[in-house]
């Protein structure tokens, strides 16, 4: 007989030995080896080898199946145990459950929103191939990026580079749209015909070819309903009057469906770009004229370099045509990078701050951590109640592993319940509140975030492990002998508990201070001096200067109207950015073209010099008025004999006025010049109205307007309302922060409550004995509260400087004008925390102190 290799395949053998329990219990390899040898001698090597592998695999699969079956059985067992133990400690279960649910609810909503923001603009099919042509300017040494670029640049790129598959320009101009009796002011978005090829907004009816026809438009669903109601808008004729007075008819070519939630920008009415000529831009071939944005689609990203290398040719044309807008470069910014880009000015989409996303996210994370600490504290402090259970389990043969698993399962069970409650809370409470604050309107359900199904299990896993691991390991480490001997002191880990309480209260302190300061700041913003008298002013936009005189003639005899003025630019609405020259140097200023008695009617305060003289323009010199900031910026002592140059014409600086807020207080006041304009440029009619007659006069103005001017909607507003939206936003922010702070406060106090109740139940006897010896409720209160009060004081001391820095930098990041942060805020926060914690502890103690000592002392 030939000697043949008799050894069985060693990998298979290894699998059998190590991956299953068969070897341990049955020494399976011996049996298989025996039969293997038999087959080997009978049928040869290959067959025996195959047989061996077959047996191995079959057995392993069988084993795995069985293991699953048993772990499921164990799981059921653990579930039952968890349920029982949660029921036994109802109070603690509820405390931890509330804490977890609140934190999870917040975390889910934050995740949903952030997930959405990260997905902004991804709704478009070729989103990753679309680029914004960004203009880089260099003024005063710093690079500035602008979304605006020259109108002819887009078509030039498209014509010169075959790699540019699609191109669209975007410009926004307002005007009036009329259909039947409906006359409303609308914003028109001028786009090239490839707009919908690049940005795949879904259409409800009609086709995207509508944009190829110069006289057809595409409406957003809401706009279509506003004008046409239930009628089918397709093919209907509307009349559009642009702000320069040009009127023409358009046919509705398509209606766009509700935008996807993650659309970074949308539109009301799309209108073919060629119409821009009618709308006021006389020369769309001139490189001097800019458009809001130019997007290109380039399928192969490698081509960008080739295109960028040929950009200098365009720069030359551009800089020759428009020396004031000296361009350094045109670069291509990917559409998907715009979301977090705050550098690009006038950007059409995005502008979400990475920092605020991080702050937003970390608050959610901290709330979760708070809840986890809560659980750990309570689990560890209540462990003494379960010492006997653990001791007996161990004696009966439970391994440490099993006890760890049991505690982990208990926590997973709890977290799972919290996850369900948290999801409901997120949907009903957190998401609406967050969306309101962040001004995201369309999130109706948390389930629009596709990644939620990954997030939820991961969240469950992480918090279960995070909160459960330490208590599980700690509790399972008790030795049965020592437990039964009574060697373990009831009390848990003092240091750990203390540190985590301090952590909780530091975080709570920070959030409360933040919310108080933000709330007070929102109030403070309303008291900031606007720099002029905003009361009793009603402004009516006229747009078409010929309406101005008609309207003024009609209303000037109303006795309630004190005075009337006209203006081209208006505080809180419009101004222009102008480049002026002084002694050969160029400066950027904000320019207001105003009517002759505009400054008087707005009560802008003159500091030196004189206001405009109505006859001045016709007389010899031209003059401007500047604000204080201008004076500071130029380092001028006074304005005597100061001349500045605007468009190569000299202007005398006639006077200086006090700084006024022409934009919301987020924006710093910059150098301003005011220049006199003529009546045919007037865009606004300003009326000063008698106090107490404001509302009736507003009605009168509206009625008169409707009677007089048929083709234009009435757009009058109160001057003191112009910041209403901003005030509202500030209030929303402060509500959101209060909401956060309240959450944290509740979670922390719950934790404290839980610990205190453990503490008190441990000291029941002591309290009883003290009472017997005559201790009053007050001295008992002091006894139990002292420890916690020390912890709260310590955390407040740590938290004060931290929150001062945080609050200050947060306010500075948003506001240029904000409330001074004084010690009052911190004292207030301290008192709030102190009072709520004392209340939550004392309610317990009160009960303990009032029970009859007989019951507590003789309970064994």
């Amino acid at each position, binding site marked *: 007989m030939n000697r043949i290799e008799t050894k069985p395949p060693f990998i298979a053998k290894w699998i059998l030995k190590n991956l299953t329990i*068969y070897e341990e*219990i*049955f020494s399976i390899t011996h049996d*298989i080896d*025996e039969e293997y040898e038999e087959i080997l001698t009978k049928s040869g090597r290959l067959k025996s080898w195959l047989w061996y592998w077959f047996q191995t695999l*079959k057995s392993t699969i069988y084993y795995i199946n069985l293991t699953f079956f048993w772990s499921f059985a164990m799981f059921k067992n653990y579930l039952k145990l968890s349920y029982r133990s949660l029921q036994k400690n109802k109070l603690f279960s509820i405390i931890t459950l509330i804490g977890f649910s609140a934190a999870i609810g917040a975390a889910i909503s934050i995740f949903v929103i952030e997930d959405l923001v990260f997905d902004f603009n991804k709704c478009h099919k070729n989103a990753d191939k679309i680029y914004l042509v960004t203009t880089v300017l260099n003024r005063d040494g710093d690079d500035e990026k602008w979304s605006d670029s020259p109108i002819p640049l887009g078509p030039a790129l498209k014509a010169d580079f075959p790699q540019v598959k699609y191109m669209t320009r975007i410009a926004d101009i307002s005007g009036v749209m009329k259909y039947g009796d409906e006359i409303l002011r609308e914003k028109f978005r001028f786009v090239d015909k490839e707009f919908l090829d690049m940005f795949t907004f879904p259409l409800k009816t009609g086709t995207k070819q509508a944009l190829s026809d110069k006289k057809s438009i595409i409406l957003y669903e809401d706009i279509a309903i506003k004008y046409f109601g239930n009628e089918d808008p397709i093919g209907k004729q509307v009349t559009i009057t642009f702000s320069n007075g040009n009127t023409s008819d358009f046919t509705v070519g398509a209606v766009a469906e509700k935008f996807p939630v993650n659309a970074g920008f949308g539109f009301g009415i799309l209108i073919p770009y060629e119409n821009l000529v009618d709308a006021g831009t006389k020369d769309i071939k001139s490189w001097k004229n800019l458009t809001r944005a130019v997007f290109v689609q380039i399928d192969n990203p490698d081509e960008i370099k080739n295109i960028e290398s040929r950009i200098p040719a365009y720069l030359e044309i551009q800089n020759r045509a428009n020396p004031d807008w000296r361009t350094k470069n045109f670069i291509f910014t990917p559409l998907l990078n715009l979301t977090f880009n705050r550098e690009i000015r006038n950007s059409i989409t995005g502008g979400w701050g990475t920092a605020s996303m991080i702050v937003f996210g970390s608050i959610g994370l901290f709330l979760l951590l708070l809840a986890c600490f809560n659980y750990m504290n309570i689990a560890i402090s209540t462990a003494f109640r379960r010492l006997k259970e653990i001791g007996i389990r161990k004696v009966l043969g439970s391994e440490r592993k099993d006890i760890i698993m049991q505690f982990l399962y208990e926590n997973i069970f709890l977290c799972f319940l919290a996850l369900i409650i948290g999801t409901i809370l997120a949907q009903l409470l957190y998401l609406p509140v967050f969306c309101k604050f962040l001004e995201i309107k369309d999130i109706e359900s948390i389930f629009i975030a596709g990644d939620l199904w990954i997030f939820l299990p991961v969240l469950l896993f992480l918090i279960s492990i995070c909160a459960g691991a330490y208590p599980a390991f700690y509790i399972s480490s008790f030795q049965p002998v020592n437990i039964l001997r009574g060697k373990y002191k009831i009390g848990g880990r003092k240091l750990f508990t203390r540190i985590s309480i301090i952590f909780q209260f530091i975080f709570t302190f920070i959030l409360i201070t933040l919310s108080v300061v933000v709330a007070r700041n929102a109030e403070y913003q309303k008291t900031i001096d606007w720099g002029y008298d905003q009361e009793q002013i009603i402004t009516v936009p006229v747009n078409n200067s010929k309406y101005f005189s008609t309207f003024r003639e009609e209303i000037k005899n109303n006795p309630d109207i004190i005075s009337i003025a006209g203006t081209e630019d208006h505080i809180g609405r419009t101004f222009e950015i102008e480049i002026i020259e002084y002694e050969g140097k160029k400066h950027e200023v904000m320019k207001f073209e105003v009517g002759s008695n505009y400054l008087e009617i707005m009560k802008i305060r003159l500091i030196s010099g004189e206001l405009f003289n109505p006859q001045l323009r016709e007389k010899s010199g031209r003059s401007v008025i500047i604000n204080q900031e201008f004076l500071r910026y130029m380092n001028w002592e006074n304005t005597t004999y100061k001349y500045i140059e605007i468009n190569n014409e000299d202007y005398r600086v006639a006077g200086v006025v006090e700084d006024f807020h022409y934009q919301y207080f987020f924006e710093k006041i910059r150098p301003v010049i005011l220049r006199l304009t003529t009546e045919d440029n007037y865009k606004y009619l300003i009326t000063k109205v008698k106090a107490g007659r404001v509302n009736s006069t507003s009605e009168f103005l509206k009625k008169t307007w409707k009677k007089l001017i048929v083709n234009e909607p009435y757009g009058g507003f109160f001057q003191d309302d112009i910041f209403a939206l901003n005030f509202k936003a500030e209030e929303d922010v402060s509500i959101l922060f209060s909401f956060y702070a309240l959450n944290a406060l509740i979670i922390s106090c719950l934790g404290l409550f839980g610990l205190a109740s453990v503490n008190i139940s441990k000291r029941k006897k002591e309290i009883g004995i003290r009472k017997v010896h005559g201790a009053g409720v007050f001295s008992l209160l002091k006894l139990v509260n002292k420890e916690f009060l020390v912890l709260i004081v310590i955390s407040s001391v740590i938290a004060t400087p931290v929150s001062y820095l945080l609050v200050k930098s947060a306010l500075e990041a948003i506001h240029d004008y904000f409330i001074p942060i004084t010690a009052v805020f911190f004292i207030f926060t301290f008192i709030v925390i102190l009072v709520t914690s004392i209340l939550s502890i004392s309610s317990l103690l009160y009960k303990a102190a009032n029970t009859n000592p007989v019951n507590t002392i003789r309970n064994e």
Partner: protein
Amino acid sequence: MELTKNEELLLLSILKLKDRAYGVTIRKNYKAVTGKALNYGSMYNTLYLLVRRGLAVAKESEPESRKGGRRKILYSITSDGKKALLEAQKIHRSAWDGISDLAIEEKK
């Protein structure tokens, strides 16, 4: 105590093989009786259950005398196991009672 078909067959094998009952022989016997091979995994799981339920016991044998001889895990039936088998037999009998061979034979 109820037995599944597999358990019953394995117990019968152990009973039949007496002190020669170990993995390889049990498996062969099973195959000889049913004509079907049982893979080791499922056989051991069933044996494991039988041992746990106290219907059979596993015992390590003395090492074999030949060179490289090894210890085997030998199985034997307990009195509980025997009772269970008897019960199973009773169930079979009463279930089959009154059914003649003719009744289920296919007509030719």
